[in-house]
Every structure is written in structure tokens, then in C-alpha cells.
């Protein structure tokens, strides 16, 4: 009965976050040193200074950079609403075209990383939690050390190690993308392994907490097989906080995807974004930032909806 209000709230959040995102991107790209118009026309030695000034003026006018900032801001907002970001300052290609050409690769990587994070992180945390419940302090210390170490290795380091071991030393995976699903395995692991161990740490502590709850003792008093005990009484209560953390980790995972795309020779949005920032290609930067921001908000909204399904008390609070 609270679902309508709950979903309306989440939708409103998407709108607010998007506006904040567009505004922040609008300001930061203009703080990057250098003149995008100058970068767009380039330095051509055969132009006289007068011609150069004229070309620059023309470029500024073409790119709408001669308009007052409030007008440019409104134009950016409008482009975000209509999903029409115009053309790249640099290549003249339509921004939507640039994105649609590359977004698939990035999304596959982000999805792969998320799957690695969840599929490794949640079961690992639950198992170690169940095993260290009031005993095996050695395992607890060992796990804390190892997970803290793996969790703090940046994805680009894992990428290099992964490529060295599994693509060069043992040629299990392709060194450059070959168009098969195998391309995604190594980068997904490099991307998701760190977050998986961070998630496992949180899940372990949550599992310990849940196992000490009175309602688990109640559940134990039914003497059901332990698989049912975990599936029905333990997991739902572990998953609620675990999904919240996973939602937060997803945003850092997305950042990692941008960085490691280059290492694996993937033609994704990461390199495009970095280029666009350096060249002051405002429409491209705004569009990609908005897309990434949107993905993070969507991921967290999905998390909220899942949590509301698992634990209906969150709907009451809404």
C-alpha cells in the first residue's frame, strides 16, 4: 500500500540527482583550463593572426560559447531533458552516436564486475560469518587480513597482474578483445574482485549479527534443515545491509571500469570521457557524466526496491 509513494519518492530522487549532476558537470568542465574553441579549430600555421581570430570567433559562435553562462546552462539542462546533446566540439559527430557506439562495452564490464562482486562477496561473507560465529578466531583474523589486502588493491593493478598471469603466462584468456564472451571475464574479475572482498567483510559482520539475533534462535527451535534456516531466516536479513553496501560499491566500480578499459584495449566510454575532459568537449563530458550518474542512481534505486521487497519495514519508513 505504500508502494506508490515509495516509487514516487525514488523517481523524484532521480530527477533531483540528475539536476545536481548536470549543474556540477557544467561548472567543473568550465573550470578546466584551456579554451575549447581554440582546441576545436586547432593551431594551423598557415592562418594569419586575423584569420585565426576570425575562425576562433566563428567557432565560439558555432559552439554557443559566446552566449552568457546562464543561457549556456539552460541549453545544457534542455539537452539533458531531451537527451539531445548536440555534436562533439572535437569531431562534429552526434554525441548520442558516440555514446551508443561505446556504451555496450562499458555496460558489459560494469555488469560483469557487479556480478563478480555479488557472486563472490555475498556467499564468501556468509560462509566465513557462519564459520567464525563464536569460534575459529584464527580464521577470523586471517580473513580480515586477506580481505583487507585484496580489497585495497586498485583494479588497474589487478588488471595488469591478471593479464600477465592469465593472458601471457598461461594463455587462458585473450590478450585483446576477440569479440567473444571470454573478453569480459578477466576485466570483470579485475574490476569486481576488490569490491567483492570489501563486500564480504561487511556481509561477514552482518551474518554474525543476524546469527546472534533472537529470531534466529526462534528459527533454530524449529529444527529445520540448515539450508532452510539460512534461506528463510538468515539471508533476507543479511541481504538488506549487503545490498545497500553493494549499491555504494557500484559507483566506485563504475569509476574503475573507466580506468581499466584502456588496459584491456576495450573501446568503451572511459577513454572517450578522459579525452573529452582534456579537450574541453563540453557536450560529450556532460552526456557521459550524466549517463554514469544515472547508472549509479538507477543501481541504488534497484537496491532500494529489492530491499523493500525483502524487508517490508523500509516501506513503512518511506
Amino acid at each position, binding site marked *: 500500500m505504500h508502494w506508490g509513494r515509495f516509487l514516487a519518492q525514488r523517481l523524484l530522487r532521480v530527477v533531483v540527482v540528475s539536476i545536481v549532476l548536470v549543474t556540477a558537470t557544467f561548472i567543473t568542465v568550465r573550470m578546466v583550463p584551456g579554451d575549447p574553441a581554440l582546441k576545436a579549430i586547432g593551431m594551423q600555421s598557415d592562418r594569419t593572426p586575423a584569420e585565426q581570430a576570425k575562425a576562433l570567433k566563428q567557432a565560439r559562435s558555432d559552439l554557443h560559447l559566446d552566449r552568457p553562462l546562464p543561457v549556456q546552462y539552460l541549453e545544457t539542462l534542455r539537452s539533458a531533458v531531451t537527451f539531445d546533446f548536440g555534436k562533439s566540439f572535437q569531431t562534429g559527430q552526434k554525441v548520442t552516436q558516440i555514446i551508443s557506439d561505446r556504451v555496450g562495452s562499458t555496460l558489459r564490464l560494469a555488469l560483469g564486475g557487479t556480478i563478480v562482486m555479488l557472486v563472490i562477496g555475498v556467499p564468501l561473507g556468509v560462509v566465513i560469518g557462519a564459520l567464525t*560465529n563464536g569460534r575459529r578466531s584464527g580464521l577470523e583474523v586471517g580473513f580480515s587480513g586477506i580481505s583487507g589486502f585484496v580489497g585495497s588493491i586498485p583494479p588497474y593493478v589487478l588488471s595488469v597482474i591478471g593479464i600477465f598471469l592469465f593472458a601471457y603466462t598461461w594463455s587462458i584468456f585473450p590478450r585483446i578483445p576477440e569479440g567473444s564472451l571470454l573478453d569480459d571475464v578477466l576485466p570483470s574479475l579485475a574490476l569486481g574482485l576488490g569490491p567483492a572482498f570489501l563486500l564480504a567483510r561487511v556481509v561477514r559482520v552482518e551474518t554474525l549479527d543476524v546469527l546472534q539475533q533472537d529470531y534466529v534462535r526462534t528459527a533454530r527451535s524449529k529444527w529445520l534443515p540448515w539450508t532452510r534456516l539460512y534461506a528463510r531466516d538468515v539471508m533476507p536479513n543479511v541481504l538488506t545491509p549487503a545490498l545497500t553496501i553493494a549499491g555504494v560499491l557500484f559507483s566506485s566500480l563504475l569509476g574503475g571500469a573507466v580506468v581499466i578499459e584502456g588496459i584491456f584495449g576495450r573501446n568503451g566510454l572511459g577513454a572517450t570521457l578522459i579525452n573529452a575532459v582534456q579537450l574541453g568537449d563540453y557536450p560529450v563530458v556532460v552526456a557521459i557524466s550524466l549517463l554514469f550518474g544515472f547508472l549509479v542512481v538507477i543501481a541504488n534505486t534497484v537496491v532500494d526496491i529489492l530491499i523493500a521487497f525483502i524487508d517490508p519495514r523500509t516501506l513503512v519508513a518511506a
Partner: protein
Amino acid sequence: MTEPVLEIEDLSISFGPAKHRVTIVHEISLRIDRGEIVGVVGESGSGKTLTSMAASDLLPAGAHRDATKWRFEGTDLMDANRAQRAAALGGKLGVVFQDPMSSLNPARRVGSQLSDAARFWGKRSRSDARSDVIDRLRRVRIASPEQRVDNYPHEFSGGMRQRAMIAMGLMTTPSLIVADEPTTALDVTVQADVMELIKELNETEGTSVLLVSHNIALIAEVCHRVLVMYAGRIVEEVAASDLATSARHPYTRALIASVPSVDADPSQELAAIGGVPPDPGHLPPGCAFADRCPLVTDRCRVERPELVNGVACWEVD
């Protein structure tokens, strides 16, 4: 049918690593006959809850249990593995826990939690189990159980949750119900309802009950036999009907004396037992109650009295 439902001998429960192990419950023997309501009374920390949890195989992680005998309905559980214990106890032992606010799973519907045991051990179908739940909720006097069965625990009041807990204990018509302070969180009228229900179940179904409470008046009213625990030991075992007149142990007498009476002069101070129970890690060599006992002698401080003829005291017999 002379076989007791539950038989435990020399049960000790301790915590901590081997070098610093603290024993909370010392060599307790417990026997509950079919159709009998046995009360365990004592103050906080006396080990009564741990004893009831050990009897129902629900000790917390990290607890060590020692016993020489542990049988449920004739099945030896001492050397049984987890599956064998589950087969012996599942559906036959119902447990009612003391804290209704935290003892139900917040993420599951009440009906689903209640029907687990009936579906697994009673082999009831989903819809049969559901009508069982509705029936039990009605028996614990929850209004409109047909709707309430689909509620989550947070939609129940505290009293309703406790009654739902009790309904859970009744789902499979168990042969023994272990009820740990089942009414402590409830107001007085609901308390009376719940006790009435437990008695009714005992009379109609012949269900045995192990009732744990700090409230000696309540225990005396409902139970057939009373075990009084102090500092992890049973200090007195007495028929409930004789409790007021023939309780012998000074601790039991003090507990009875501390129950306020309606006729008592309100301007008078309530009778209380002076002092505090000893630290379980540093029990005195003699009787643990010695420091608070009006009858204490030198012998009490050096030599511990065993439970003989229903009482563990040097000064009374």
C-alpha cells in the same frame, strides 16, 4: 506411559576458553513427566534460562554443555548428531521465547514463520498449514486471524507478538513446551490469558510444560512441581501446592515473602532479599547463598550442601 518426556542428569553449562572457563550452571538434574508442568524459578543470572535452552538444544554459540544423561521421549540425545537430534525434537518440542519484540523474524510474514514446523515436521500442505496458523492464532485470542496471518511482526503489538510466539509453540501439538518467561513482557490481563492457555493445553492435550520465570507467585499458580535455582544450582525442589506452606530453603522462603500481597499495608516497605547473587566466576566454597542467608552458620561458608530430599541446606531438613 511412565517414561518421562525429558530427562537430564548432571547438566553443567560453561563459557569461555578452556583456561578461563566460567561455569554458570552446575550439575543440574531435571525430569519432566508426561502431562506435568514443571516450574523453574530464580532471579536473573541464576541459570534458569540457560537450563531451559540446554533442555531444548538451543544454547548460544560458544557455550559448553556437559551431562551424563539427556533423553527426550526415550531417545538418547547425548551422542546424537545434529540430524538425529532434529528428528527427535522437531515438531515434538515447542519453545516459547521471552522477548516477543526480537524473537520473530522482522522480514517474514507471521503466518509463514508459524507454519514452518507444521509444514516440515507435520507434512502439512501450504493451505492446511495456513488454516492451522489461523486456528492457533484464534486460540491465543488474536482478533481477525484470517487477516493477521499475512501481517509482518512489526504490524503486531507486543502482546500480540507474544501470543503469536505461543501459537508457534502450539503449531505441531508438541509433547513438551519450553516457555521462558512467556508473560514477562505482557500486561497483567494478557498474562492471565496466556497462563490459562498453557494450562488448558496441558489439560486437553497432555502437553508437558517447562515454565521458566522469576515470578514465584505465577509459578506456584500454574505448575505442579517447582525447582528453585540459585547461582546455577537447584536449591529446592517442591510440589507447587506445598510451596507456600512447606518450602524449606531460606532462599525459597525469602522469595515467597517478597511477593507483595494486596492486603499489605502500603506504607510498609516491601520485603526484599538483601545483597546480590555471587559472581559465577568466583563462587564461595560453601553455600552460594550464605552471604544473604538469615540462618547462616560457619559450616555453610566452607562446605556446600547437596540437594538431599528436595532441599540443599545444612540448617533445614
